[in-house]
C-alpha cells in the first residue's frame, strides 16, 4: 500500500462504519435545536393559545421596557492609596517562579494582570523544562481560585486560628518528643534544598522525628537499582537529544514518566527533519497499552504486561551476545516481528548514542536496564549519573514500613504534606486504621481531601503562586519560586508552618535568602539574588565523571519472577489528570485524553479482540475484580492494546476533591499492589455513554494526514505530499495542471485578496506534535473558553477552540510493503496493530473562507491581515457558518455558561473563579458562534509594541498561546508577507500542505508531513 494513500480512521465506529454511524456523522450538530429546553427555562409553554400568547407577549414587552428603564448602575473606580511600582492597571506583569508538586516540575513565568495571576508560560531560561509546560501546570493557575480551597486552618473539622493550632501542635510535639514517641513527617518528593533544610531544623528540634518520602506513583525500583549499581539512590538525567536509537519499554516518557516536558523538549530536537539535516532519531517503543510515547514511536510492538521483565532480560541477552558479555538465565521471549532482537542490533550499532528506558518499578528489572545501558555505553552520553535528578525520591518500602509502624501504635505524631495516601496508597484501609492509632495527625494541605479530612489538624496551605521557595530538580539546576500574589486566604506555606513549629520566627523569604547567601560564594550576592529571582533559575550544573558501575545481573535476573494470567490489568496515568491530585480542576477533567479522546471519566481500555471475544462494546459497564477489590467502570475499546491486557487509569474515583472532582470515575490505586494482577471481568449488563470528542465525524477517506518515511524523504522531500490539482484547459487547447491549494490564481468564487500589510499564518509540524494536549489547555486559559461538562461533551458541544485529532492507521512495517485485502480484514478484526498520527486543528483562517459567505448578518468577516474575524455582537446564531466550515472548528454557545446553574464546573461561575479570566478577551454570551482567533489580542499587543519601537514586528514576536506552550515546538506562527519569516519558509517547504486544500479555501494553516523513521530492511 502506498503510504500516501494509507487508510486512516479515527474511531472503531468509523472503521466498522455501521449505517447508524454514517447517518449520525453527516450532521454538524448532534441534535436538533433544543427549543423546548430553551423555552422551558423561562417556564413558557409551547402549546399556548392565542390569548396566552398575547398575554405573554404583552408581559414580556412591558417587562423588557421596564427593565430597560432601570437606572444605569453607578460604577466606581478605586485607585490605590499607594501605587505599587511594579503594578499598573491593564499592563501585565510577569514573574518567574517554579511549579513543583512532587509529580510535575516546571520553571515557569506567570502573567499577572491587576495583581491576579491569569496565565502560565514556560521559562525558556530553564535547562530542565526549557520553556515547556504541560497541561497540568497550565491548569494549575486555576487551583489558586478554587472554591474548594481551605481558607482557614481547622481542628477536628472546625475553623480555628493559627495561634491555637501552633500552640496545640507545638505542645503535643514537644510532649511526644520528650516521651520518646516517634514523629513522622510524610511528604512527596521534595526537590527544594531550603525546604529540606527546614525539615532538617525540625528534626533537630524534635530528635525523634524522621522524614518519610512517599510518591503515589514512585520510581522506587529504579532508585534501588541505582543504589545497588552506582551507590546512590537517585535517578539519572536523560538526554534524549543525544540518542540516535531510543528503546522504550513501558516507559511513557513523553506522557507522564518522571519529567515528560524535559524529555519531550530533548526528544524533539532529534525528530525534526529538514533537507539540510535529513536525520532523525529512531524510536522503538515496546509497551502494553497505547501511550502518547508509543503513538510517536517509529516502531511499536506490544507485550503482555507480566512479561515486561522478560522483554528486558531478552534484550539484555541479545545485546550481551553482540557485546560478548555473559547472558543471564531467562526464558526466551520476543514480541511481534522479533522486535527485541532487531532493536538490540540497532542499539548496538548506535552504541554510545543509544538509550534504553523502562517504566518498570522492579529493582531487579531496572538493574538489568542499567546493565544494558552500561553495555551500550550510554552513561555519560544519553544518561548522566553525575548530574542526578531528584524528581522522584520515594522508596515504596519506607511507606509500607510507616503504615506498619502506625498500625503497631508506634507513631506518636504524623505530619503530612503534599500526599494523599488515604486516596492513592494501594492499601489505604491499612493507612486509615494506622492513622486512627496515631495520637497527633496533622495535614498541611490546600484542600480537605481524603487524608486531610481524617486528620485532626489541617494547616491550610498556600498555593504555590502565593509562596516563596526554591527547587533543585537535578543537581546544579536550581530554580526560584516567588509568589505572584499575596495569600488570598488565611493560609501558610508548608515551610512557614514548619518554621513556626520549629519555633523559628524568621519569614520564609528571609530564611530562603539567608540559606542561599550562606551557600553562595558570589561577590555581589545582592545582584546575584536579584538576577536569580528575575530569571527564575540559577544553574551551575557541572557534569563530572560517571560513578563506578557494578551490577550483579545474574542475581537480578534470578530475582525476577513471572506470574502471568490470561487477562491482566494494568493501571496507567492519563495526560490531564495524572496521579489525580488535581482531579478538582475542571480544565483537566475536560481535556480529552490524547489517545482515547475521552474526558470526564476513566474506563476500562480493552483491545478490539478482547471486546469481540467477550461481546463488549463501548460504554458497557463491567465489574473489574482483583485482590478482593472491585469497581464498576465502562468499557472503551482501545486499538493498540495488547489483547490479553485491560487498562484502567488512576487519578479518578476521588471522594473528596471538591465540587468538580468528586465521584468521577473509579479509583484504580487499590489495584496497584503488584506489577500486574489477575483480574476477573464480568459484564453487569448496564450501559453508559462515554464523553468522547472527535469520534463523531468520518473523514470520508480524505487525505487529511500525510506521511512518509525517512528513507523516502531523503530521496524526495515532497514524498507523501501529493497536492490536489485540476486540469485547466488553455486557450491553445492544451491542458495545464492548476494546484488550487497553492495557486492563488485558480478560478474561484471569492474576491481575490491582496494582503498589503500583514498576512498571519501558522505552520504545524506533524512530525513534532506528540499530542500531549498542553496547547488545548493553554488556549482554554488564554481565551476564556468555558467548561461545559460531560453531558454536553456527549452532545458534541465541547467548546475547545483547538483540538488534537488522533488518527489510527494499520501498521506498515516497511516503506514498500503491500497490505492485501485479506490482511486488512485481519487487521480490522485484530485492530491492535495500529500506527497513530496527531493533528492539532484550530481555525484555519481561510483566505477564501466558506463560513464568511454564508453568514446572513456579516458576523464573520475577513480582515486585511488574513484573519477570519468573528464578531460576537453581530452574531444571531444561525450556525450556518459551522455547517459550512470544512474543518469543523466553529463552536456554538448553546447556553450561558457563566450563569446557568447546569454548568457549575465552569470557573467563570463564581466570583473567585472569575479572577482567572483574561480581561483582554470577551466572555461570550449565549447564542453566538465562536472559534480560534489566532490569538488576535496577542497580535494587536505586539503590533502596538512595534509601533512604540518604530519598526515592524520581529519574526517570532507574536506567539499564539498554543505555540508558546507547545513542549515540542511543533507550531510556528508569523507573517507570510515577511519573506524571511520562519512561517514563510515553512510554507515553501516540500512537506507543507493545507488540509483539504482541493476546496481552494486557501487555509492560513499549513501542516508538514509526518516522517517516520522506518526501517525497510529489518533483519
Amino acid at each position: 500500500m502506498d503510504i500516501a494513500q494509507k487508510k486512516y480512521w479515527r474511531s472503531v465506529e468509523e472503521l466498522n462504519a455501521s449505517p447508524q454511524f454514517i447517518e449520525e456523522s453527516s450532521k454538524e450538530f448532534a441534535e436538533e435545536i433544543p427549543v423546548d429546553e430553551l423555552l422551558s427555562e423561562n417556564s413558557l409553554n409551547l402549546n399556548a393559545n392565542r390569548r396566552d400568547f398575547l398575554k405573554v407577549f404583552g408581559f414580556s414587552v412591558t417587562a423588557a421596557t421596564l427593565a430597560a428603564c432601570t437606572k444605569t448602575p453607578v460604577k466606581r473606580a478605586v485607585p490605590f492609596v499607594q501605587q505599587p511600582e511594579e503594578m499598573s492597571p491593564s499592563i501585565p506583569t510577569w514573574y518567574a517562579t517554579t511549579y513543583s508538586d512532587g509529580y510535575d516540575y516546571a520553571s515557569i513565568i506567570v502573567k499577572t494582570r491587576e495583581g491576579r495571576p491569569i496565565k502560565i508560560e514556560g521559562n525558556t531560561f530553564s535547562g530542565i523544562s526549557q520553556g515547556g509546560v504541560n497541561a497540568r501546570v497550565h491548569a494549575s493557575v486555576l487551583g489558586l481560585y478554587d472554591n474548594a480551597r481551605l481558607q482557614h486552618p481547622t481542628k477536628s473539622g472546625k475553623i480555628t486560628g493559627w495561634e491555637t493550632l501552633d500552640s496545640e501542635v507545638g505542645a503535643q510535639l514537644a510532649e511526644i518528643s520528650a516521651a520518646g514517641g516517634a514523629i513522622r513527617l510524610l511528604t512527596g518528593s521534595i526537590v527544594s534544598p531550603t525546604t529540606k533544610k527546614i525539615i532538617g531544623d525540625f528534626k533537630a528540634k524534635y530528635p525523634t522525628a524522621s522524614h518519610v518520602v512517599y510518591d503515589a506513583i514512585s520510581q522506587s525500583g529504579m532508585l534501588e537499582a541505582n543504589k545497588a549499581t552506582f551507590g546512590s539512590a537517585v535517578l539519572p538525567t536523560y538526554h534524549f537529544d543525544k540518542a540516535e536509537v531510543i528503546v522504550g519499554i513501558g516507559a511513557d516518557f513523553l506522557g507522564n514518566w518522571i519529567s515528560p516536558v524535559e524529555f519531550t523538549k530533548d526528544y524533539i530536537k532529534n525528530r525534526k527533519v529538514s533537507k539540510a539535516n535529513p536525520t532523525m532519531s529512531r524510536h522503538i517503543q515496546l509497551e502494553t497499552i497505547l501511550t502518547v510515547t508509543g503513538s510517536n514511536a517509529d516502531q511499536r510492538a506490544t507485550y503482555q504486561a507480566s512479561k515486561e521483565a522478560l522483554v528486558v532480560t531478552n534484550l539484555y541477552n541479545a545485546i550481551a551476545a553482540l557485546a560478548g558479555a555473559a547472558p543471564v538465565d531467562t526464558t526466551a521471549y520476543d514480541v511481534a516481528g522479533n522486535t527485541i532482537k532487531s532493536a538490540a542490533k540497532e542499539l548496538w550499532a548506535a552504541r554510545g548514542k543509544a538509550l534504553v528506558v523502562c517504566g518498570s518499578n522492579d529493582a531487579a528489572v531496572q538493574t538489568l536496564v542499567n546493565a544494558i545501558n552500561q553495555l551500550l555505553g550510554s552513561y555519560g552520553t544519553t544518561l548522566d549519573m553525575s548530574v542526578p535528578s531528584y524528581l522522584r525520591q520515594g522508596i515504596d518500602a519506607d511507606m509500607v514500613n510507616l503504615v506498619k509502624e502506625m498500625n503497631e501504635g508506634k507513631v506518636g505524631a504524623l505530619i503530612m504534606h503534599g500526599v494523599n495516601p488515604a486516596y492513592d496508597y494501594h492499601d489505604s484501609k491499612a493507612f486509615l486504621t494506622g492513622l486512627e492509632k496515631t495520637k497527633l495527625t496533622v495535614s498541611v494541605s490546600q484542600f480537605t481531601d481524603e487524608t486531610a479530612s481524617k486528620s485532626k489538624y489541617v494547616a491550610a496551605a498556600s498555593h504555590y503562586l502565593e509562596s516563596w521557595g526554591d527547587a533543585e530538580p537535578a543537581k546544579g539546576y536550581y530554580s526560584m519560586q516567588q509568589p505572584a500574589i499575596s495569600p488570598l486566604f488565611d493560609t501558610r506555606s508548608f515551610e512557614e508552618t514548619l518554621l513556626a513549629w520549629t519555633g523559628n520566627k524568621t519569614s520564609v523569604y528571609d530564611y530562603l535568602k539567608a540559606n542561599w547567601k550562606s551557600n553562595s560564594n558570589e561577590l555581589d550576592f545582592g545582584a546575584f539574588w536579584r538576577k536569580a529571582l528575575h530569571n527564575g533559575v540559577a544553574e551551575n550544573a557541572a557534569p563530572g565523571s560517571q560513578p563506578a558501575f557494578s551490577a550483579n545481573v545474574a542475581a537480578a535476573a534470578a530475582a525476577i519472577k513471572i506470574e502471568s494470567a490470561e487477562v491482566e490489568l494494568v493501571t496507567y496515568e492519563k495526560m490531564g489528570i495524572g496521579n489525580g491530585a488535581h482531579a478538582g480542576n475542571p480544565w483537566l477533567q475536560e481535556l480529552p485524553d490524547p489517545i482515547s479522546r475521552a474526558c470526564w471519566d476513566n474506563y476500562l481500555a480493552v483491545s478490539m479482540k478482547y471486546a469481540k471475544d467477550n461481546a463488549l462494546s463501548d460504554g458497557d459497564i463491567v465489574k473489574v475484580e482483583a485482590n478482593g477489590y472491585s469497581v464498576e467502570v465502562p468499557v472503551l475499546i482501545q486499538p493498540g492494546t495488547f489483547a490479553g491486557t485491560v487498562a484502567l487509569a488512576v487519578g479518578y474515583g476521588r471522594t473528596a476533591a471538591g465540587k468538580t472532582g468528586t465521584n468521577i470515575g473509579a479509583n484504580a490505586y487499590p489495584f496497584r499492589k503488584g506489577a500486574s494482577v489477575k483480574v476477573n471481568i464480568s459484564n453487569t449488563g448496564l450501559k453508559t455513554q462515554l464523553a468522547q470528542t472527535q469520534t463523531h465525524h468520518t473523514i470520508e477517506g480524505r487525505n487529511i494526514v500525510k506521511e512518509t518515511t525517512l528513507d523516502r524523504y531523503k530521496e524526495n522531500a515532497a514524498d507523501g505530499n501529493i497536492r490536489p490539482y485540476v486540469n485547466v484547459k488553455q486557450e491553445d487547447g492544451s491542458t495545464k495542471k492548476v494546484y488550487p491549494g497553492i495557486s492563488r490564481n485558480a478560478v474561484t468564487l471569492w474576491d481575490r485578496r491582496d494582503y498589503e500589510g500583514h498576512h498571519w499564518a501558522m505552520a504545524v509540524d506533524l512530525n513534532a506534535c506528540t499530542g500531549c494536549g498542553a496547547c488545548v489547555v493553554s488556549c482554554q486559559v488564554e481565551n476564556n473558553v468555558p467548561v461545559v461538562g460531560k453531558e454536553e461533551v456527549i452532545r458534541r458541544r465541547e467548546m475547545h477552540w483547538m483540538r488534537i485529532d488522533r488518527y489510527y492507521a494499520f501498521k506498515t512495517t516497511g516503506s514498500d510493503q503491500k497490505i492485501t485485502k485479506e490482511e486488512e480484514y485481519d487487521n480490522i478484526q485484530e485492530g491492535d496493530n495500529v500506527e497513530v498520527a496527531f493533528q492539532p486543528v484550530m481555525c484555519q483562517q481561510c483566505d477564501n473562507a466558506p463560513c464568511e459567505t454564508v453568514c446572513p448578518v456579516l458576523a464573520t468577516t475577513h480582515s486585511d491581515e488574513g484573519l477570519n474575524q468573528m464578531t460576537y455582537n453581530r452574531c444571531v446564531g444561525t450556525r450556518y457558518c459551522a455547517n459550512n466550515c470544512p474543518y469543523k472548528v466553529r463552536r456554538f454557545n448553546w447556553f450561558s455558561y457563566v450563569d446557568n446553574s447546569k454548568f457549575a464546573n465552569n470557573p467563570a461561575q463564581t466570583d473567585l473563579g472569575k479572577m482567572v479570566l483574561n480581561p483582554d478577551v470577551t466572555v461570550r454570551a449565549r447564542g453566538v458562534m465562536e472559534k480560534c482567533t489566532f490569538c488576535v489580542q496577542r497580535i494587536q499587543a505586539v503590533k502596538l509594541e512595534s509601533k512604540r519601537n518604530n519598526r515592524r514586528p520581529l519574526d517570532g514576536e507574536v506567539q499564539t498561546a498554543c505555540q508558546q506552550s507547545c513542549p515540542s515546538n511543533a507550531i510556528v506562527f508569523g507573517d507570510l508577507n515577511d519573506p524571511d519569516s520562519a512561517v514563510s519558509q515553512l510554507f515553501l517547504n516540500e512537506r507543507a500542505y493545507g488540509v483539504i486544500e482541493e476546496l481552494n479555501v486557501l487555509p492560513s494553516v499549513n501542516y508538514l508531513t509526518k516522517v517516520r523513521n522506518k526501517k525497510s530492511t529489518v533483519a
Partner: protein
Amino acid sequence: MIQNQRFSFRRIALFALGLLLFSSVSFDSKAQSDGVDLFKNNCAACHKIDQDLVGPALKGIAERHDEAWLIKWIRNSQAVIASGDQYAVDLFAKWNKVAMPAYDWSDEEIKSVLAYIKEQETATTAATTATGDPLKDAEALVAGDDAFPMSTLLYIIIFLAAAVIYLLVRMQKQYQNSYENQVEKGQLDPEKLIEVKPRIKIKPGYMVVGGLGLFLLGGIGWGIDVAQHVGIQQGYQPSQPIAFSHELHAGKHEIQCSYCHTGVERGKSATIPAVNVCMNCHNQIKTSSPEIKKIAAAYENNKPIEWVRIHNLQDFAYFNHYQHYKIAGIECQTCHGPIQEMPEVYQHSNLTMGWCINCHRETKVNLDNGYYQQVHGDSEKFKNALTEKGLTIANLGGLECSKCHY
C-alpha cells in the same frame, strides 16, 4: 454687516496680539519653544511664574541669581545645598525641605526654560484685554458667537409656519364672514361677483386627524431617538467624593494630564491617580482645605477614594489610551472635551461605535512611524498616500471588527 465689522475688529485685535507676542519673543524662538515644553512637563507641577505653589514663584528669578547658579541648581539642587551655599540652604528650609528633582538637561535646555520664564514674566505684566493665552483667544475667535443649534432653528421654523397657517386660516375666515355679512346686508350682489372660493376647505375633522398623525409621527421619531440613546451616557456628570476640579488643575495651573494619568504613557488604562500622587503636592499646598483634608485622611487611614466612574466603555470593546495618545498623538480633549474647563468632569463624547468609526474614517495615520513604513511601505496606496492626501486609519484596516473586539 455688523457681524462682519465685529469679525474684522477681532481680526485686528488678534493681529495686534500676535505682533505684541512676536515682539516679546526672545532671540531664539526654537529654544523658547523647547522651554515651553520642558517647563510645562517638568516645572509647572510645582512652580508658577507669579504665584507660590509647592515651590516659590519664579518671577524675577534671573534678577535673584546669576545663570551659572541657576544651571547648577536645576541640574542638582541637593548638590548645591550640600555644598553649603547659604542661600540654597535657607531656601530648602523655607520650603519645608521638599527636594526639587534633579534634571539632567543641557545648558541650552536650561537656558531655554529660563528664557521662557522671562518671557512669561513680561506676558503676565503686560495687561492686555486678551486672557494672555494666545491659544484660547484664537479658539474663542474661531468659535465666534455660537450659531443657533439646528434643532432650535427647526422648532422656530415649525412654530412660524404654524403661526402663518393659523393667520391665513383666520384671515380667510374673516374674509368669508365679512363677505357673507355684506351679501346678507345687500351691500354686495353675489351675482355680479366673480366667485372666489377657497381652493381648500379645511374641515375641523381633517385638522384633528392631521394633528394626531403629526403627533404620532413625532412620537415615533422621539421614541427612535430615545431608543438610540439607551446606554449612552453622554453628558453624565456624577458628583464625586472629592470636589476635584480639572478646571483648576489642568486649566488654571496647566498641569499636564499625564502627570497624574500616568497610564496613558504606558498602557490601555489612563488610570486614576493613586492618593499618593495627590499627596505629592498636597502635603504642602492648601492643606487646610476641607476637600484636601479628605485626601489626607484617605492617605493616612490607607482607605482608597472611591471615585465614580464616568467613562464606561463596554467590556467587549478594546480601547487603548497609549495607542491613541502616544502613537497617534491624539489630544486628550479630542475625546474628553474641554477638560481644562470642567470644574466637575462630564462625559463629553457619546462613546458609541459610530463615534469611534467616524474618527477612524477621518483621522490620518502618522506615516512617519517605522511600523507603517516597514509593513505597508511597499503597497501602492501607501506610495500614493505620500504624494497625495495621506491615509486614514480606515484605509489601513482600522474599521475591521477584530481591531477592537477580541
